[in-house]
């Protein structure tokens, strides 16, 4: 697995490098001292795993994630940040406290190995979402509905509905077309979350998603959805 280490302190990076020497399947392909360098490194190298310090000069680790189109697996490394704890409200990605205990690193890497699907150039798997003080790394499979709001898109997952600064159209291009279906101009649904389908009075379909809401499907797309679900 290819890893990038982003931390503004050289000693912190070399300490992590030393700790990772015990895990020969992880190779560090790049190091970064700040958000700009990390972003450039991620564009340059095929990175599967990102070790990310949260407080860095010129921008935080979260600022970096918000900028990324394709997000690798992330392990936050932090000296002490209440933000780090808050960041993990929903998702299960890992964080390590500096100084890093070798056993904690080993456990985090075990979880990463289970989750890793290789550096696929396939559809979007995870997306970083920040709204106010809270943030999530959301598995795209857990998103049941995407709703367009101008330049923003509202994501429905769990009990949360945060907005992200990406257009529905831009997101659609990155989504797995086998799972995600354009219900209308302003909505994309995840077919794996469909709980029921009703017919509207004018012949269009109304899809009920597990955990809500109900989503009306445009007439043109209703025909396609019938085929898709072989109704």
């Amino acid at each position, binding site marked *: 697995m290819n890893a990038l280490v982003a931390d503004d*302190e050289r000693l*912190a990076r070399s300490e992590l490098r030393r700790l990772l020497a015990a895990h020969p399947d992880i190779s560090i392909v790049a190091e970064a001292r700040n958000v700009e360098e990390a972003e450039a490194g991620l564009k340059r190298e095929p990175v599967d795993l990102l070790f990310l310090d949260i407080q860095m000069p*010129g921008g935080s680790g979260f600022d970096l994630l918000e900028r990324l189109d394709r997000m690798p697996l992330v392990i936050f490394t932090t000296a002490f*940040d209440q933000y780090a704890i808050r960041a993990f409200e929903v998702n299960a990605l890992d964080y390590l406290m*500096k100084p890093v205990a070798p056993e904690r690193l080993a456990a985090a890497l075990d979880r990463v190995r289970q989750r890793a699907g290789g550096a696929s150039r396939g559809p979007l798997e995870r997306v970083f979402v920040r709204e106010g003080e809270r943030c999530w790394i959301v598995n795209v499979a857990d998103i049941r509905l995407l709703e367009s709001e101008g330049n923003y898109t509202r994501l429905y997952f769990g009990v949360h509905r945060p907005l992200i600064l990406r257009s529905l159209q831009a997101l659609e291009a990155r989504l797995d077309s086998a799972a995600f279906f354009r219900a209308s101009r302003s909505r994309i649904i995840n077919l794996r979350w469909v709980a029921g389908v009703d017919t509207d009075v004018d012949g269009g379909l109304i899809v009920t998603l597990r955990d809500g809401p109900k989503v009306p499907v445009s007439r043109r797309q209703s025909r396609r959805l019938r085929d898709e679900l072989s109704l």
Partner: protein
Amino acid sequence: MRISDLAVLAVLPAWLRPAMAIGGWLAIYFGVLARRRQRALEINALQLEVVAHDARLRSLESQLNPHFLFNCLNSVRALIVEDPARAQTMVTRLAELLRYSLNMDRAETVTLDEELQAVNDYLSLERVRFEERLSIDVAIEPSARAAYVPRVLVLTLVENAMKHGIAHLPSGGALRISATIAGGELHLEVANSGSLPHDAVGTGVGLGNARERLRLLYGASASLTLTARDRRTVVAALSLPAKAPTASRVSDLPPAAAEATA
């Protein structure tokens, strides 16, 4: 006044009674005045004690600032392999700094020389973390080292300069500490690369507490300002009488006042 006191007045010649009464009233008047002054002194000393404690707690918070402390420990862990001698020095410096901050019972003011030793410990730790991203310049007039400053106050200014200034700059910056004596006053400056934020972090708790301490210790004869010298430099400027202030602690007050607050 008790009845028996009035009875004494009754046996005195008539001409003496008004004089006695006036004398009595004057005695009471000056007594009350003296007590008031004494109380004002006590209140000031108590306020000072509270603010000083608060300052020490804040300094503790910032050195025991978990972010600083754990990053230091992480550097030490790396240095143990890379440069064991440097790791040893770092542990000693960290111990000195923590001792200086934890020592709550010592005098309210210390000599600038003593304070600068703690500043030096702190900066040597930051230098390990920041490496080439931190350049330090210290220019202290020899006579200024004997001047008295409120304990941990200069340290707080330097920590602020690091935390709000240099730590935010990807390519780092410079820190300059200078001190001179002029007209019996100490003039100390902590200048750092960076800019004042629009929401003015500088007016936040750290400096607010420092100003309150200065007011209680020196009244109007001390000042602390935070300004942008130019677009890239922020300067904290401190001026105060070079001599140690009197009555800086409850225990330094006249015995009566100390008793009253005991």
